[in-house]
């Protein structure tokens, strides 16, 4: 029932996630922010087991922040992704694994290029041009296969994202009225109204 997408454009990564917080048949709130800013140029959309999600997301955020403070330079997206993947791979082999899936979108300041990673609770890592988690992925991925353009401007990227969102809203039986959208580029992270 939770849904998140992300796509890479020209010098940016767009990340979107639904804003419903629900348990069984009850929707508790519809303004939940499921995209964390884990470091100045890194966004992480999380989904999965309630409780595990925020716990793990905060764990990642705090550790990456410590790295940043200790070492002046923040960890590059590829290194952050590897560290997160390693944490999940260790977790799945422990007594109580974190059941959390992530979309990691960031801007590599040293290489001046956007990066996107699809990560799941098993510790699977894939660097991808676009990605999605949840039931919404069944609709979004085919649309992105057809319409994604890695050189798209931010406006064009937002249009593609809007297509995905409206398709999910139309066809998924669960009502996901509102989506939170954030973008990361060389200037950092900011929220976008769509």
């Amino acid at each position, binding site marked *: 029932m939770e849904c998140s997408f992300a796509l890479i454009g020209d010098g940016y990564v767009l990340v979107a996630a639904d804003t419903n917080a629900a348990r069984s048949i009850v929707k508790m709130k519809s303004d939940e922010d499921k995209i964390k800013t884990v470091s100045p140029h890194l966004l992480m959309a999380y989904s999965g087991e309630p409780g595990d999600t925020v716990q793990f997301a905060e764990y990642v955020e705090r550790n990456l922040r410590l790295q940043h403070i200790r070492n002046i*330079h923040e960890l*590059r997206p590829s290194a952050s992704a590897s560290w997160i993947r390693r944490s999940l791979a260790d977790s799945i082999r422990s007594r109580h694994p974190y059941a959390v899936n992530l979309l990691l979108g960031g801007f590599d300041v040293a*290489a001046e290029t956007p990066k996107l990673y699809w990560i799941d609770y098993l510790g699977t890592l894939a660097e991808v041009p676009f990605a999605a988690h949840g039931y919404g992925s069944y609709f979004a991925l085919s649309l992105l296969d057809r319409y994604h353009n890695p050189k798209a401007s931010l406006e064009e990227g937002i249009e593609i994202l809007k297509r995905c969102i409206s398709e999910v809203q139309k066809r998924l039986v669960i009502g996901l009225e509102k989506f939170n959208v954030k973008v990361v580029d060389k200037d950092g992270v900011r929220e976008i109204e769509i």
Partner: protein
Amino acid sequence: MIAVRRFSLQRVVYTRVRLEYAMEAISHAGTVLGVLAKDGVVLAAEKKVTGKLLDLSIAKEGGYGGSGEKIFLVNNNVIAGVAGITADANSLINYARTAAQRHLFSYNEDIPVEQLAQILCDLKQGYTQYGGLRPFGVSLLYAGYDPHYRFQLYHSDPSGNYSGWKATCIGANNGTAQSLLKQEYKDDMTVDDAVALVIKVMSKTMDSTTLGSEKLEFATITLDSTTKQPKAKIFRPADVDALLAKHGIAKKDDDTEMKS
């Protein structure tokens, strides 16, 4: 409030004395020289353990280069030169290599040079504060590359202090070498300029009258032009002789002298 160990001035003095002994040991060790260029870093060292009966076949063919006495490969992007107690140095190099691989394991990237220096310094500092063990009698020069700060050169000493340098020297005659470097170093040197400078300074500070591969270890860190990845090269004896010949330092052959 329970204090596990009360702060003791006597302990502090004792530690300081041990550190001074360590520094003293280092000041008798073979010189290691490092120079930073805009496209690479150069390390050179004077070997003290030499002799006809020494088996250096590994240095000639196997391993990652170097005789295993002064200059070591720590990771793809870092080489280190050591001066001081050899056994302590070997232990620290092993620790550094493990730390570099540990970083690679978690982050899938080469360890940033300064972080490696910090990890070793944290270890060395521990030996001045906990356990009653003596400090490591080793000074190290770390030469390396990472994408953030590009080429770098660091020096760390037994106390666990480190600093970044454009050119520096440890071991015997490091004072003379350091002042020579201060005079001759220029900010926009290339690796070739740095090599020439290093050879010049080494020839002035080394005990031996002639430079040759038996007494000199040489290494560089550069960037591969095609892959854009750091490339560490620790010269084999034949390479050192070729390099010296290229810079006009002829090797005096003892047998030839006898004949004439």
